[in-house]
């Protein structure tokens, strides 16, 4: 064999050994999620988004594929840890899912011990990203909810806000962010904490009406809290210009179940209702969702879809570099810079997505119209406008 042929052969061999693309492979992904217990509804919705993400990824990838192994954590922190360990024993390379900061906390620490990536959108507590975990990633955060509320209030030119908030962890955090964000902008903020067991909000609303006299009321709570606050406000009719809240407020469920309370109320929302999808990816997501579950997707499904899609892409990239079992998935997650159906996503060192900003929707005649930011708007914001 001549020297040149030998060189060519050696080069070809080295290319095959060192630089040839990795073989196509199927990767098991663990979905640790509440499918029973008090978080079953939200867990089920997120799980549907995860399944859609897997379906779309496998259809498009052409090379690597993913297989979702789902395990119900029964809305229990201890069982979530057990589920993470069981899924590891089943050979998963990473986890998607999790709902509730109290469950995500221990489950993601268990994943960290196993050296496997854990990605979620189900817990917004800032404590989760202060733990210096190397394998924890989250696509949303409290800041994103507070930013959306502040953005809408700023656009409306609101000068004073009464914040009515539950003393639960995530709600209190968003309320405090709202206070510290609006205060320096010259907006007068008054704070009204309530115990999660509260169901009579008339004393608080009465105080707001007679003492605070704000332009806006911000409700930072959960579904039952919103209903209680709005019922109290409908009776006492404080002289405000707008009323807004955060999660689980600007939803189809609230529009359908409480039409008399929701008109003109605003809340954070990923989707309009009826859902309007504009980008090709979002349209494909909605079609796949409809095909798989015979219904339109909700915002939890979208979050489950986005977090899982980003994870699958990171797994595929790590597979191409042969680093799936060597910490490559976390490395690839940190390289993420993607324009997704919930907006831009990138991860900082703590695993948080500093780009996350929610959108604001407003109930209008039985529909939910996206009204902020303007580039995502599907209708015109009504202001001043209240439900009574």
């Amino acid at each position, binding site marked *: 064999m001549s020297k040149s042929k030998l060189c060519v052969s050696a080069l070809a061999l080295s290319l095959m050994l060192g630089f040839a693309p990795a073989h196509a492979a199927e990767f098991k992904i663990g979905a640790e999620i509440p*499918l*029973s217990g008090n978080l*079953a509804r939200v867990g089920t919705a997120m799980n549907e988004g995860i399944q859609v993400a897997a379906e779309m990824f496998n259809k498009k990838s052409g090379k690597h594929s993913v297989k979702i192994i789902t395990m*119900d954590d029964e809305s*229990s*922190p*201890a*069982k979530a*840890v*057990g589920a993470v*360990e*069981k899924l*590891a*024993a089943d050979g998963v390379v990473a986890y998607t899912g999790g709902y509730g*900061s*109290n469950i995500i*906390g*221990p489950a993601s*620490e268990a994943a960290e011990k196993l050296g496997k990536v854990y990605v979620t959108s189900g817990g917004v*507590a800032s*404590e*989760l990203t202060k*733990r210096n975990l190397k394998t924890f990633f989250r696509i949303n955060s409290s800041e994103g909810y507070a930013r959306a509320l502040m953005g809408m209030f700023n656009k409306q030119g609101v000068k004073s806000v009464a914040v009515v908030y539950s*003393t*639960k*962890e995530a709600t*209190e*955090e968003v309320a405090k962010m709202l206070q510290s964000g609006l205060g320096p902008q010259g907006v007068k903020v008054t704070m009204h904490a309530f115990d999660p067991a509260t169901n009579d909000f008339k004393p608080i609303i009465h105080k707001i009406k007679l003492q605070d006299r704000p332009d806006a009321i911000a409700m930072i709570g959960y579904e039952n809290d919103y209903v209680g606050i709005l019922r109290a406000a409908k009776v006492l009719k404080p002289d405000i210009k707008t009323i807004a809240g955060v999660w689980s407020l600007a939803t189809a469920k609230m529009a359908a179940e409480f039409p008399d309370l929701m008109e003109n109320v605003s809340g954070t929302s990923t989707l309009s209702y009826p859902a309007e999808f504009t980008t090709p990816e979002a349209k494909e997501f909605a079609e796949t969702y409809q095909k798989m579950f015979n219904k339109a997707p909700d915002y939890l499904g979208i979050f489950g879809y986005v977090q899982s899609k980003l994870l699958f892409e990171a797994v595929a990239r790590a597979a191409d570099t042969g680093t799936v079992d060597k910490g490559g998935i976390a490395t690839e997650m940190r390289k993420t810079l993607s324009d997704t159906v919930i907006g831009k996503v990138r991860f900082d060192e703590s695993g948080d997505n500093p780009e996350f900003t929610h959108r604001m929707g407003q109930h209008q005649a039985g529909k939910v119209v996206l009204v902020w930011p303007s580039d995502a708007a599907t209708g015109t914001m009504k202001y001043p406008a209240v439900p009574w």
Partner: protein
Amino acid sequence: MNDKIKIALFLVLAYIAVPLALGSNAYVIGLIVAALTIGGIAVAWALLGNLGGMVSFGHAAFFGVGAYVSALLTLKGGWPVFPSMLMAGIGAAIASVATMPALRLRGPYFALAILAYAEIFRILATEAKPITGGAAGLLSIPRLPIVLGLDFGSKLGGYFVILTIVAASMAVYHLIRSSTYGLALKAMHDSEDATRVVGVNSTLLKAWMLAVSAFITGVVGAFNAHYINFLEPDYAFAGQWTTLAIVSAIFGGYRTVTGPLLGALVVYLVDQLAFKPILPQGHQIVLGVLLGAMILFSPGGLMPLLLAKKKGPAHAA
């Protein structure tokens, strides 16, 4: 087979055979640890129920207090984990003093009063935000330590720790039951008034049983906090710590020393390993049916059924 051989066999099986057979399966060991955690509370609950004659619906209070004491001592006081767990037991026993006015109540009134105490402790933990972190809870609680090269923070290490806690609790239960105090407590079951007449301070004895039961539950709570490295009021004082313990103790036979542990192992492991894979959602209903059947057909629980002993009316035997 006499009792000493049975105990030796149990210890060999628990400390050697189980780790050898299942040590490499972290998931199953994790489930056994969870079952033993429930078993520890069940033993403490049965001790109070059987020897103190009091049905408690509020053992979650002692579990939560113990968990918080140990977590805070290690996180904020810099204490080593094992001494903190011991202090957790003492903390829970001290907390039980606050519940002692309820000892003057009987039957469902005592049960409801102590349930209220669990709720009070939960609210206190939620409101004492500067100390406990409030509703946000405490993350990254120190794991169980490495001692003399043994990593108790591993799955198997955690198994040995909780197994030792449960075995020691059962030994304490047995010793009390065999002592003169145990005799007095048995007598109180038949007639508390008659026992008082012969000079037994029944209230003091009940208070001691409550403190011992709280101590054990507090240590188990502390173990759980260090094992899953997380704590929040809703979780620490969750009703499940009481209900699962009651179900386990009744299922296994709360008038025996080994029944509560056996009940916890069967209830938890059968549920998670057998029923859950078949019925991913709603598998707990099978347990409910089984518990109902057990109460109907063997009111004394699984242990007497296995031993096939037909004794007279059950009491503090």
